[in-house]
């Protein structure tokens, strides 16, 4: 875990501090004088030796002190704290809803495997996946929010009941976006289990198909399902870049997008470090969960 984290810091360092164009040029424009640039470089700490700059990135990974944004001058850890809640109000319900829906659908279609309903569902999933996410967002916002007026077009309010009307449509779009790949994935997992010997044994001893699906197949498929679910949790905190920007939700996705547009390196760096850290932590968590769900798996 630690070597991977150091590696992540190194890649971030190489990308943003070595290979990237001089940030002072972006911030001051083309007509900046030499002394202006030197002053700014000193102010941003870009004139220090490379290993100190690298060490800074490593240290911030463990202390969560990322400094201030270049464009808004806010404390970055503060920005992350403020942005996480709005992101989660969209992604968490959407994620739970889409996971339950897709697992149920995949149970049904793997029960009717090879039949018309199975083939039709797979086709619909592939078709859903083939449309650009931009199109869902644009058309959804246009028809459901603008023309029919069912939802708020965009914006956000803090506090529990206030944000609900703003997040409904984003949640709906998220569910539509994720249901295609999810159903396909869960279905493959279920089918992997259905052709196992223990299922044939269960059938041979006269268990009903229902008991087999829920007691045997679902339980064994749980191992893969949990991996798939847990490893995506860190990305929920990040939110969805596109959805947040279209619906003006002040979450982390929006922060990233703004940082990209204004070349705000410290923010991009902090977000990259944070999401990498979350990803690594959750991979470890998945490994631990593995042994809980399936005692046959042992951690080395």
């Amino acid at each position, binding site marked *: 875990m630690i070597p991977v984290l150091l590696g992540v810091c190194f890649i971030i360092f190489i*990308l943003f501090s070595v290979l990237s164009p001089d940030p002072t040029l972006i911030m001051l424009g083309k007509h900046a004088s030499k002394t202006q640039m030197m002053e700014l470089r000193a102010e941003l700490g870009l004139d220090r030796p490379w290993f100190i700059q690298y060490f800074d990135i490593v240290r911030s990974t463990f202390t969560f002190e990322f400094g201030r944004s270049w464009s808004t001058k806010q404390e970055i850890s503060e920005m992350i704290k403020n942005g996480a809640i709005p992101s989660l109000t969209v992604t968490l319900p959407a994620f739970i809803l889409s996971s339950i829906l897709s697992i149920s659908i995949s149970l049904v279609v793997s029960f009717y495997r090879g039949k018309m309903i199975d083939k039709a569902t797979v086709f619909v999933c592939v078709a859903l996946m083939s449309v650009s*996410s931009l199109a869902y967002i644009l058309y959804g916002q246009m028809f459901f929010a603008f023309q029919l007026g069912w939802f708020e077009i965009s914006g956000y309010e803090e506090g529990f009941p206030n944000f609900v009307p703003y997040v409904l449509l984003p949640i709906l779009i998220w569910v539509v976006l994720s249901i295609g790949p999810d159903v396909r994935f869960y279905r493959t997992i279920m089918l992997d289990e259905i052709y196992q010997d223990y299922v044939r044994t269960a059938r041979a001893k006269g268990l009903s198909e229902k008991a087999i699906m829920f007691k045997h197949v679902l339980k064994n498929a749980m191992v893969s399902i949990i991996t798939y679910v847990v490893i995506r949790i860190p990305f929920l905190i990040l939110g969805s870049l596109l959805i947040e920007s279209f619906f003006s939700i002040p979450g982390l996705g929006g922060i990233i997008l703004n940082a990209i547009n204004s070349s705000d390196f410290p923010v991009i760096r902090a977000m990259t470090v944070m999401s990498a850290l979350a990803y690594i932590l959750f991979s470890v968590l998945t490994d631990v969960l593995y042994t809980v769900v399936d005692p046959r798996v042992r951690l080395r």
Partner: protein
Amino acid sequence: MSDTQKSKSLWYHAWESLTSDKMAVVCLLIVVSYFVLAILSALGFVAADYAKEIGPSYAPPSSEYLFGLDIFGRSVLAKTIKGSEVAMSVGLVTGVISMIIGVFLGAVSGYFGGKVDEVIVWFYTTFNSIPYIMLLVAITFILGKGIIAIYLALGLTSWVGLCRLIRGEFIRHKDREYVQAASAIGGGDFRKIFKHILPNVLHIVIINFSLQFQVAIKSEVILSYLGLGVQGVPSWGTMINDAKLELARGNWWQLAAATVAMMIVVLAFNILGDALRDALDPKLKGK
């Protein structure tokens, strides 16, 4: 033994199984026609005058202007065709880049094992922990905006999945009898990797390539939409971006053209990818 029959190869069987699937054949034809269209457009035979004003601003679709016109009175049809050139080239180049990196690192890591394996596994785990959108952004920052940046950014961020698969297959294959036989007659590592083991795992590469292709097309659209993509030439992403503001005024055709054009080719690639998997990997048949 005069009536010895040459046994049919895996590829022949796969081709037979693929062409017996009507859906797969249709999808193959769709993909081929997109390629032909993209090549014709690149050579300037079709849609060369996409930037020319041919009628009033925002003329709706009619028999004269098949897909309607955009704000500058340019043909949306021509822009869509020009966009297919960008999309197909992005899919192809990205797929090739990620294939080369993934196969090479996966093969070396799986075949040699030990320290080499550890370093490569560390490298791709590290790479994989960084969200790909951040890597994309960083790479486009470094290289500047444009199609080359898109090729490299998407290619360099998409090889990890294939690398893992290939590594796993090489670990399974490297101690098999045919590889031992190859060493016995004096085959070197290079020969064993590329001449003996690689053909046995090639089906994974092909399936992965077809899936990578459509993922790249989808990503290009999003990157171009974010303003990090191609500049100057119409792409489906920039068309969708332009159409964002037009939609509220009821001008839906530019968005529709770009969306449908992309959906058809991505759908075709998805179905083709599944059919290829069924044809080349008989263990997974019917799943």
